């Protein structure tokens, strides 16, 4: 029942405010390889949204195109009602991004990285330093704030990247695999910050291939397979009759019933 009520609230809001992200007919090919094959997506505002799919499904390519870091071959992307490619001034001020596989300015310390990012975004210096101090505290990075980012562990890098993405208080936050390679303690910290952030009415869109995580965090999911969106909607709707998102996902991908059979019958047998 709580799900129902939440949906109604979001549905009401949908009528007034534009969706957080609207994608129409988005295509991207690299040479012969089609990475994203004409997807349509409408992600409601104020939700915790998971973009799930196996490796190579096109999640990173999609997020890069939505955030303006990669030019699509075809298609339209709107964030909070503004076209990403025609109206970058409006869009770039409203989004925060944590990409996967791109570096940070690693020869700055954690604190310097935040000071740099905030000022580059045009925020007043005193405000940047205040926010940076709080973010470093909450993300448990205060002890390492003067260490160079190049010496950070994977979890610490994700956390400082998240801090840099949150610094200007964006409406929509895009995170590509924010929990990949992150230890459980850091993951819990990241989770706490993100939950607090969405509770304020902001939108988080994150990609992952860990279904349990998506199921426990998100109230809205989009399933991506081989460059296409297979399903999108509230979590309960996508999950349907299946006992878990994992099995619903395997069903969608068509990977159910694949068995090792007898080919590995020696494994675990008499030595």
């Amino acid at each position: 029942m709580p799900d129902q009520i939440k949906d109604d609230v979001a549905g009401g809001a949908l009528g007034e405010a534009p969706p957080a992200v609207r994608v129409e007919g988005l295509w991207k090919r690299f040479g012969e390889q089609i990475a994203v094959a004409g997807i349509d997506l409408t992600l409601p505002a104020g939700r915790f949204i998971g973009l799930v799919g196996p490796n190579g499904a096109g999640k990173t390519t999609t997020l890069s195109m939505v955030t303006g870091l990669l030019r699509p071959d075809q298609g339209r992307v709107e964030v909070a009602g503004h076209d990403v490619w025609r109206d970058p001034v409006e869009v770039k001020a409203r989004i925060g991004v944590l990409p996967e596989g791109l570096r940070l300015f690693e020869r700055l310390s954690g604190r310097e990285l935040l000071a740099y990012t905030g000022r580059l975004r045009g925020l007043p210096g005193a405000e940047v330093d205040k926010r940076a101090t709080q973010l470093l505290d909450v993300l448990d990075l205060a002890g390492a704030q003067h260490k160079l980012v190049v010496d950070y562990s994977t979890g610490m890098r994700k956390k400082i990247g998240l801090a840099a993405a949150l610094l200007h208080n964006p409406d929509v936050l895009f995170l590509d695999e924010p929990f990949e390679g992150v230890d459980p303690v850091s993951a819990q910290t990241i989770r706490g910050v993100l939950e607090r952030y969405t509770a304020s009415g902001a939108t988080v869109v994150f990609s992952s291939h860990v279904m349990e995580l998506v199921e426990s965090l998100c109230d809205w999911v989009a399933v991506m397979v081989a460059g296409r969106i297979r399903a999108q909607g509230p979590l309960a709707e996508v999950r349907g009759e299946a006992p878990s998102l994992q099995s619903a996902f395997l069903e969608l991908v068509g990977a159910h019933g694949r068995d090792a059979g007898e080919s590995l019958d020696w494994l675990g047998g008499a030595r």
Partner: protein
Amino acid sequence: MISVFVRLKLSLLRGGLRQSAGRRAAYVTSAVLTLLFAAGQLLGLVLLRGSEHAGTVVVLLTGVLALGWAVFPLFFPSGDETLDPTRLVMLPLRPGPLVRALLVSSLVGIGPLFTLCLAVGSAVALAHGAAAVVAAVVAVPLVVLVCVALARAVAAGNVRLLTSRKGRDLAVLSGLVIAVGIQFVNFGAQRLGRAGGLSALDPAGDVVRWIPPASALGAVEAAGEGAYGEAAAGLLLSAAALGLLLYAWRRSLVRLMTAPDGSTLAAASRPSRRESAASSASPGPGRLWPEGRTGTVMTRSLRYVARDPKTKAAWVTSLALGLIVPLFNALQGTGSIYFACFAAGMLGVQMYNQFGQDTSAFWMVAMTISSARDAYEELRARALALLLVTLPYVVLVTVLTAAVLGDWRTLPDALGLSFGVLGAMLGTGAVASARFPYSIPQEGAFKNVAPGQAGLAWMSILGGMVTAAVLCAPLIALMVWLHASGAGLSGRLLLLALGAAWGTLVAWAGLRLAAPRTAKRLPEIVAAVSKG
């Protein structure tokens, strides 16, 4: 066990070559070049036979060679796969046989072959008489073994350093040592040529002949002259060195493979004194960061010059060469004050590929640029950061060159030309940064372009330099005309002012031209600088 390791080494070589055609071509080219060079050395050494300085030359050459072997693993830590013994930790191996097997497998490769050629050539140059030949038969393998063992012992002793970030930073800086070193060798050789030949080296040779592995070749010469005691001492010295190196190598191997690596432990990291001082003493931690994009970008650029090994190496090389070339030429009396423009050119090159210098971290900048105005401010801030160092430096180099030459009269127009060149380099650099961005691989001192982007890099820098030269042509023409008409001081000062004004104008125009292109091509730039 030895044969297993030798085969492993050969497979690794084969596997590495199979990876890409480019790598294969590079390997074959380097092998052919090295062997040609070795053949040349061999021929030269054989021709040296009978010369009275043969002993000195051979001994010094061997000394330099050994030094090279000792330094090599520090600069090229990833040069050899069998080199990293930590990969063998999980295998049940005893240190004794392991050292033997690693030593033999290390003898496979171009480097040892080159050393062997040199050692054989040296022995041929020195061996006069039966006793010397006998000594040479012992000395040649000894030289090769000591060189290889030296490299391995140094590498094993420093594996922890070499695989850490500090070590990798050090390796990147090595290019710098070599670039500047070549200049010194160059000028040193010119000096030597004038100072009256090789006899100047004899005192150095007398010392080096007692240092292993050169002592083994010194022994060959001594045996030829009948000084058998001296010969035996020389050979024994080298053999003892080999034993000592193997012992040291074995000890570090045992330590490496049995002691745990604590370098990634984080828990116990108390804030160091500097950190705690920084956090307690600073009223606002961001006090050094100015407001607005211009100051912020300048601060970041200058911090990267100090902290990023790749950027630092490029800068220090530019600064050093920009000073050495005009000044040394002036010292040798062959220079002209206009050589000082070289400094402006060397540093101006740093404006090229600005975004490639950011690596893929450029996305953080791209996310904050939403108009041509933002892009202009970004580029202008980077140019200003460059100017902050370059402007005083160019003045300093020009004045120093003038002082050495005693040519104060031409100082104003040389300075004017330098400013013009600097402005042209900044302007064309900005345009090239927007139009031809390319990735700079972060590891390795000698890889400055990602595979497949070499053409782009050449086009960017070469095209830019030609354009910069063309842009400076009016200034040069004016200068020639002023010289021809015998203008006085006022004319020269006018040229200085004109040069500064022209440089400013060209730089400004370049930034203006580059800004809208940068703003429009952000995704393309991000893609171009994220390769490799």
